[in-house]
C-alpha cells in the first residue's frame, strides 16, 4: 500500500502514518513495536505495509503484554535506538504504568543524566466511537502528575505531524495521545517537508475577547465550532487548543485569561483531578485579580466508564451545543 503522498490534504490517521513512515525512512534507529503493528498493520491501518518495507526487526509484533512493550522499548531507547511503542488502545496502558512512571520517566534522573529515554509511546484514546468500556478512555490525568513525562494530545493533521516529529526528536519519554474519533473526522493540509512544533506550546485557534476556552483533542474542534457559532451572534470567544498537556503552556493561557477575564476548560476526561483542575489552580494562583467570573470546567462525569448504549455515550460526551450554551452563560455572567 502506498504511503500517503506528502503535501496533500490528510486525515489525522494519514498524518500519523506518513510521519511514522518518514521517521523510519529518515533514521535507521527508528523502531516500531506493539500489538498488531506488523502483519495486521495496526487496527487503524496506520502501519499497514511497513513490515514489508522495513522488515520484522524494525516493525515488531508483540504479544498482548503492555508492560513488556514499554519495558523493551525503554531498553531500546537507553541503548541508542529510537523506539516508537504503540499501546493499541489507551485503555490497555495500565499494565505498563510501572514501566512508564517508575522507569521511563525517571531514567534521566536515576542515571544522573548518563542515560536518557528517547521513547515515544503512541496510543489512541477517547470516546464518541461506540467503543464502550475498554475502547473509550482518556488517560492523560493518570500520567500528567508525573515529572519526567511529556504528554501531547494534538488535534489536527498539521499538529499530529509536527508534534510527533518533535516527540521522536525529544531525548526523553513522550506519551503521544491520538484521539481516535478525530482519526478520520479531521482533514487538513499537511506540508510536505519535515517540521516540528515546539512541545509545550498551545495554539490559539480563534481570537476573541469575552471568554477564554481551553481544550484539546476532539473537543478542541467542537469548542472552535461552538465559538464560531457564537461569533455569528456577535459573541467573541477565544479558543485555545492546548496540544501539549504537559508541559503546559501557562503563558498562552494566562495571557488569554488576562484579556478576556473568564475561563472555561473543556475536556473529555473526567472532571475530578483532571487537566482542568490544574489549569484552574494555575490561573487562580497567577491571575485571580483578573478574573471576572468563577472558572468553569466542562468535563466528563465521574463514572467508571463510558457506556456502550448510545444515550449513555451521548451523556458522557459533551455536545457542541452544550459547549455553546456554557460559553453563552459565561459570557453573560
Amino acid at each position, binding site marked *: 500500500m502506498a504511503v500517503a503522498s506528502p503535501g496533500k490534504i490528510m486525515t489525522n490517521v494519514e498524518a500519523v502514518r506518513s510521519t511514522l513512515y518518514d521517521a523510519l525512512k529518515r533514521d535507521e534507529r527508528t523502531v516500531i513495536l506493539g500489538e498488531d503493528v506488523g502483519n495486521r498493520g495496526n487496527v487503524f491501518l496506520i502501519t499497514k505495509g511497513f513490515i514489508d518495507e522495513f522488515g520484522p526487526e524494525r516493525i515488531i509484533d508483540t504479544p498482548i503484554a503492555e508492560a513488556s512493550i514499554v519495558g523493551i522499548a525503554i531498553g531500546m531507547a537507553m541503548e541508542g535506538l529510537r523506539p516508537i511503542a504503540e499501546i493499541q488502545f489507551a485503555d490497555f496502558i495500565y499494565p505498563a504504568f510501572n514501566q512508564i512512571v517508575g522507569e521511563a520517566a525517571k531514567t534521566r534522573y536515576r542515571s544522573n543524566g548518563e542515560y536518557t529515554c528517547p521513547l515515544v509511546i503512541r496510543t489512541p484514546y477517547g470516546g464518541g466511537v461506540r467503543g464502550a468500556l475498554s475502547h473509550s478512555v482518556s488517560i492523560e490525568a493518570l500520567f500528567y502528575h508525573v515529572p519526567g513525562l511529556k504528554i501531547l494530545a494534538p488535534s489536527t493533521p498539521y499538529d499530529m505531524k509536527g508534534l510527533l516529529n518533535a516527540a521522536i526528536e525529544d531525548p526523553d519519554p513522550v506519551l503521544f495521545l491520538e484521539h481516535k474519533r478525530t482519526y478520520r473526522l479531521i482533514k487538513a493540509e499537511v506540508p510536505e517537508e519535515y517540521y516540528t512544533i515546539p512541545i509545550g506550546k498551545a495554539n490559539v485557534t480563534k481570537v476573541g475577547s469575552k471568554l477564554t476556552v481551553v481544550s484539546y483533542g476532539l473537543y478542541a474542534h467542537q469548542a472552535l465550532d461552538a465559538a464560531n457559532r457564537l461569533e455569528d451572534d456577535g459573541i467573541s470567544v477565544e479558543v485555545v487548543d492546548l496540544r501539549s498537556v504537559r508541559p503546559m503552556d501557562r503563558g498562552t493561557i494566562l495571557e488569554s485569561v488576562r484579556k478576556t477575564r473568564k475561563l472555561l476548560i473543556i475536556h473529555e476526561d473526567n472532571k475530578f483531578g483532571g487537566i482542568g483542575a490544574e489549569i484552574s489552580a494555575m490561573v487562580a494562583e497567577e491571575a485571580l*485579580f483578573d478574573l*471576572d467570573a468563577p472558572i468553569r470546567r466542562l468535563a466528563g462525569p465521574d463514572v467508571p466508564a463510558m457506556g456502550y448504549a448510545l444515550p449513555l455515550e451521548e451523556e458522557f460526551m459533551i455536545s457542541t451545543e452544550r459547549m455553546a450554551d456554557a460559553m453563552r452563560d459565561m459570557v453573560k*455572567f
Partner: protein
Amino acid sequence: MATTITMPQLGETVTEGTVAQWLKKPGDNVEKYEAFVEVSTDKVNAEVPAPVTGTIRELLVKEGETVATGTAIAIIDEVGVASKPAPVEKEVGVGASKTPVPGETNAPSTFVPTDHPQAAAPQSNGTSHAVHNGSSEQVLRGASPAVRKLAREHHIDIATIKGSGANGRVTAEDVLQAAAMGPAAAVGQAIASGATAPISPPTAKPIPADGKSTYGEPIPGTIVPLNQARKIIAQRMVESKHNAPHAWSMVEVDVTNLWKWRTREKDAFTRDHGMSLTLLPFFIRAVVESIAVFPLMNARFVEQGIEVHKNVNIGIAIGLATNLVVPVIKNADKLSIKGLALAGGELIDKARRNKLGVDDLQGGTFTVNNNGANGSVASAPIINGGQAGIVTMEAVVKKPVVTKDDAIAIRSMMNVCLSLDHRVVDGYVASGFLADLKKRLEAMGPQGVL
C-alpha cells in the same frame, strides 16, 4: 416613550443647579449612563449621566441658566419601550431623589424623626439612588476580583454602577465603561475647577492634575472674570462669614510624644500602604473623640434650633494651586487612626488628581484644616457653611518649654486654632472642646496602636 429629565440634586444643601454645558444636542442619541449634560452646583461641576437610552428630543434650559432642582431640563425619547403596556409619561430626576431632602440625609439629625423614610435610608445620597443595585454590601459580595481591581484602579464606586451581567451583576466591562465615560457617570464628578473651561470629551479623562485654576490668568491691569467655581467659593465665604458670627481661640499643644509615635510608624506604614503617614489622622482621631464629649461642636444652626448631627463626618480642607476643596471622611468616629490615614490619604490623592466626586465632597459636619505645612503658626479659618466650627493644625515647631517641674526642655509644639459659630456654642463649650483636644493629643505617644 418620552422621559422628562429634571435638574438633579447634587448635594445635600443644594437647591439649584446651573446647566454649564450640554454635551448632547436635540436629535443626538444618548446611552443610558452616558454623560449628557454638565451641571455646576454648589462647588461642584458634575457630568450627569442619562437615566435612559434614547434620543434627545428637547433641551428645556439654556447653557448658563440656573434652575431649581427638580425642574425639567430635557426630554429624552426612550428607545424600545414604546410598545410596553401602559406607557406612562414618567419623570426622572437624574441621579437624584426627586424631592429635596430636608436636613442632611448623610447625617440624620435630631430634627428628623427616626422613622422618617429618608432618615432610615443609611448613607443614601442623591447620586447613588437612581443607579443603585442593592446595598453596597450586596454589590461588593458579588463583585469579582477583576471588578474590584478595576474599580480600585479607576477610582469608581462599584455600588454606583448598573450591572449588565447575570442578575444585574456588575461586570469588569461595566467598570471599564463607567471609567471611559468619566467618573461622572458613576459618581457625578469633578471639582469646581474650570466650570467655564472646555469640557473634555467623555473618553479624554482623567483631567490633568493641574486642572484649570479658579483664578484664571491674573494679568495686571485686567479684571479676571469669575468662573463658576470662583463665584461659588466667594459666595459661600461671604455667606458663612455673614451668617455665622465667628469667634476664635487657640491652644498650644505639646506633640513631642505624638511626633515620636508617628516617626516610629511612618516607614512601616509607607511600606505597607504606599502612602505617607502624617499627623493628620492622629489629629482627626483626637478631634472625633473630643466631639463625642462635646457633641455641640458637631452641629449647625438652623431656624428651628441647633441641629445636632448623628454622624461625625470630618471635612479635610485641601488647598490646591487652583482652588480649595474639602472632601469628607464619612463616619470618621468609626475609624481607627490607620483607617483615617487610609481614608484621608485616598481623598487627598483624589483631590490632587482632580478625581473627587460629589459623594466625596458632601455631608461634612466638622472641618479640620492642616494649615501648618507652609509654616503657619496661627490662622483664623472661615467656618465651612452649616457647621459649628473648624479647627486647624499649625506648624510643629521645636521650642524651649518650661516643664511642670520648672525645668526648661525642648519640645515639639503645635498650635491648634478653632473658629466657631457663636450662635451654636459659646466660649465655654469651645474652650472645653479645645482643652479636651489638647489633652488627647498630648496623651498620644509611641505606646499607642494605630
